[in-house]
């Protein structure tokens, strides 16, 4: 029973795991090679992000999380 719940939740976004890895790899590279070196004029990895995000919006089950996904780009200083 417990295991079922765990695996159910696991599978909810694991459908996106390849797209997620592609995006995170690209992000980590941009972060280390560009952002950390003072090139912060733009975020890269746009196509990886679009694909990953489209997958997430199909597979995210938790409605609280969906709210965050929809509020793209709106992150306030006050959240920290």
């Amino acid at each position: 029973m417990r295991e079922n719940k765990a695996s159910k939740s696991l599978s909810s976004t694991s459908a996106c795991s390849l797209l997620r890895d592609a995006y995170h790899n690209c992000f980590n590279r941009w972060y280390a090679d560009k952002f950390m070196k003072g090139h912060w004029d733009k975020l890269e990895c746009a196509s990886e992000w679009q694909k990953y995000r489209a997958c997430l919006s199909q597979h995210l089950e938790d409605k609280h999380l969906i709210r965050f996904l929809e509020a793209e780009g709106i992150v306030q200083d006050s959240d920290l």
Partner: protein
Amino acid sequence: MVKAYRQEHVYKHPWERVSCASWRKFADPENKRVLSHILDVDTLNHSLDPSSGKLYTTRAITIHCPGPWFLRRIVGQDICHCVETTMVDAMSRSMQLSSRNISLQKFIEVEEKIRYDPHPDNPSGWTLCQQETRIRIKPLSALASMAEKVEQRCADRFLQNSVKGREVMERICKYLEAESTSLSL
């Protein structure tokens, strides 16, 4: 009925390397075995302010948190979602992360803040990590009568996991260090 504690750790690595390691902390397959309570980490949104060099990110972290049987019976689930917001200020070299649970909120609130800053004694070589955790059982919840015990248990678990988290961070820093030296050779 709040349990709060602070921890500090000094990484003998520059801030840039530590902040790169922080992004990789949950993602690396090698670490997934050590941090086995982390089931999934998804980025929900991100934005960059090009004028100030500030990067904002929101991630969802899915955690496996099996409590004792009586807790499980009350709470009815052992999967918990947390939302983590991160702000990286590249100009002033500061990284601030804040996470809180969004599931089980009627029972418990856990908030964790971590910040990474250049160490005042060696700003170019070391990084100071300050971590603050607050755990609060909601007073009217079914857990209230055993709040103290549950809070202590949560606190213990959090402490164990933050030790594991630091080990993972140290390992990724070493790996990144090796990678950068081999590149510059």
